[in-house]
């Protein structure tokens, strides 16, 4: 049964004839965020078709605003998830930051900017604490940040009650520095007759920075490695510990930013706020293509995920669908968006 040689072995190192060049389309399709982008376009098209109001520029500005308040946090949460960890305290940390800034400045009669700066320190500190405890104990981040979640929730209420006697912070609208801070964190920018919230621009900026860091810096490389295979990353000398603590602090930073936005747009902060938001952020990140198991995802994806969530929840209102069924519509839309995402990915893999 001895047969002749059927193919001459190619010289080593030469180009492999087994590999078809991937078309540009296929390469584009295989980016983590493209599937969700198609999902976003599908959701957009749907509401564009069924909801006349959705077509107005003003409505789009509202949708973008909704995207930004979710998306700024979702970005940090996505980075953290790429790095292989969760933060369940992300939602209440926003409230903590806002409460702290206002209470601190109010109680000590300081300029609001001092409160803002102090809140930044506190927020970064909470992030660093989460990260430190995680690395120190080796417990899963789910548990650590669950603990922080409950603690912050309790502290928000307990401290506010203790200091103000009420369950919300005192209004800061008449304090020094309010107007400037409002301009930075919570103003409105008119563009071609439409008022766009400033958070939208901050969001774009943050996503651009996030993308740059992820794809073009050492730190980004380390984030992917720490989430993809912690042991391997450590073995080749990646500072896993510092990377993860840094990611938690990034979440802290964004929580501070969103907290400041809330403080300066609503003047007073309800101490019970933020609970449950952490999951919205995770949802946005996952819908945007992040793997829950870490090591895969993108900054742009988190923005698209936030946009899908914002578009869907407001789109249902714009479409005038029965409010009683709101959540059911939301669920169906989310499932559809992710299934579209999956189909796009499968198609990309086949090319």
């Amino acid at each position, binding site marked *: 049964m001895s047969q002749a040689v059927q193919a001459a072995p190619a010289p080593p190192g030469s180009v492999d004839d087994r590999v078809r060049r991937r078309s540009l389309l296929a390469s584009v399709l295989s980016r983590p965020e493209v599937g969700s982008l198609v999902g976003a376009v599908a959701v957009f098209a749907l509401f564009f078709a069924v909801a006349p109001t959705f077509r107005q520029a003003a409505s789009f500005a509202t949708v973008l605003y909704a995207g930004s*308040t979710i998306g700024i946090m979702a970005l940090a949460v996505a980075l953290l998830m790429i790095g292989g960890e969760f933060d369940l305290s992300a939602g209440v940390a926003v409230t903590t930051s806002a409460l702290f800034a206002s209470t601190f400045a109010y109680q000590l*009669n300081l300029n609001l900017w001092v409160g803002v700066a102090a809140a930044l320190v506190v927020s970064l500190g909470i992030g660093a604490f989460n990260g430190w405890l995680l690395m120190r104990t080796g417990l899963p981040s789910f548990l650590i940040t669950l603990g922080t979640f409950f603690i912050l929730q309790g502290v928000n209420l307990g401290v506010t009650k203790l200091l103000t006697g009420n369950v*919300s912070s005192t209004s800061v609208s008449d304090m020094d520095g309010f107007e400037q801070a409002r301009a930075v964190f919570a103003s409105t920018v008119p563009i071609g007759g439409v008022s766009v919230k400033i958070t939208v621009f901050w969001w774009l900026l943050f996503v651009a920075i996030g993308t740059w860091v992820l794809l073009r810096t050492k730190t980004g490389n380390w984030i992917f490695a720490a989430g993809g295979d912690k042991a391997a990353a450590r073995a080749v000398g990646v500072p896993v510990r510092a990377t993860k603590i840094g990611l938690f602090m990034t979440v802290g930073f964004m929580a501070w930013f969103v907290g400041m*936005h*809330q403080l300066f747009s609503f003047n007073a902060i309800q101490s*019970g706020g933020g609970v449950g938001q952490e999951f919205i952020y995770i949802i946005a990140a996952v819908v945007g293509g992040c793997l829950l198991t870490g090591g895969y995802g993108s900054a742009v994806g988190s923005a698209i995920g936030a946009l899908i969530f914002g578009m869907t929840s407001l789109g249902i209102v714009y479409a005038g669908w029965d409010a009683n069924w709101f959540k059911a519509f939301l669920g169906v839309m989310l499932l559809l968006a992710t299934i579209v995402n999956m189909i796009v990915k499968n198609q990309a893999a086949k090319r």
Partner: protein
Amino acid sequence: GGRQEDEAPAGGAAGKADTPTMKIAMITHAAPGDTFWDIVRKGAEAAAAKDNVDLNYQGAPEAGDQVNLVQQAIDADVDGIAVTLAKAEAMAPVVKAATEAGIPVVAFNGGFEEWQEAGALGYFGQDERTAGEAAGQRLTTEGAKKALCVIHEQGHVGLEARCAGVAETFGGQTENLYVTGTDMPAVQQAITSKLQQDPAIDRVVTLGAPYALTAVKSVADAGSSAQIGTFDTNADLMAAIEGGDIQWAIDQQPYLQGYLAVDSLWLYNTNGNTIGGGQATQTGPAFVDASNVDRVAEFAAGGTR
């Protein structure tokens, strides 16, 4: 701005009773951190301080948890229980268990129709539905055409009952909108989008003071001319009514609900009295609007209205 040194302590301080210390549990269906319930608690604490009562305040939104809290109060053998009966069906058996164990129970806030059957001694409060009906009537007299009722917690019995009451007596059209109460920007965005979608809406009714203040921003954002009314009050809301941003607020006097609930248990235990004499004691609805806001604002600033 900032803290003023001379800010008055909240609440009325009365003399203290010399009766032996009494343990009373107050158990509501509210999650902690809600403005309305905070005022209820302040009223209860004021009464407790006056009556030499050791008050244990608890709240849980899930029916099962609230039942457990009452059971725990029974386990702790308290001298009286004040409970909200928003979920009367679920609470009735454990209220019965308490009375069987010899612990007097009063109902407040929720359970206007069910408190007697459940075996409570008295009821202090304002049926949510009645409050809603009052709001609906007010909208009708104002000549409104279409109202938006903003529910900040989906499936919450009390909130749903308020909106149902509005829909019942309001001559125009009523539409509900569900928003995520824990996320203020989302509340603002959702109301804005609804107003953009339906320009015919000329009234926004919110079910809590902070949401009314947020609705003011939404109305501005959407360029709508809708007027705003709300349930419940706080200090900032008073300012908004004075400034004309918000038209009115329905006040069911939560402070009074908490105060009377505790005080009635104290009276019952020390003297066998029942406030209301077997009838429900209504604490509202009263409207706060431009005509009477100065009178109430003073107390709202102290956090007790």
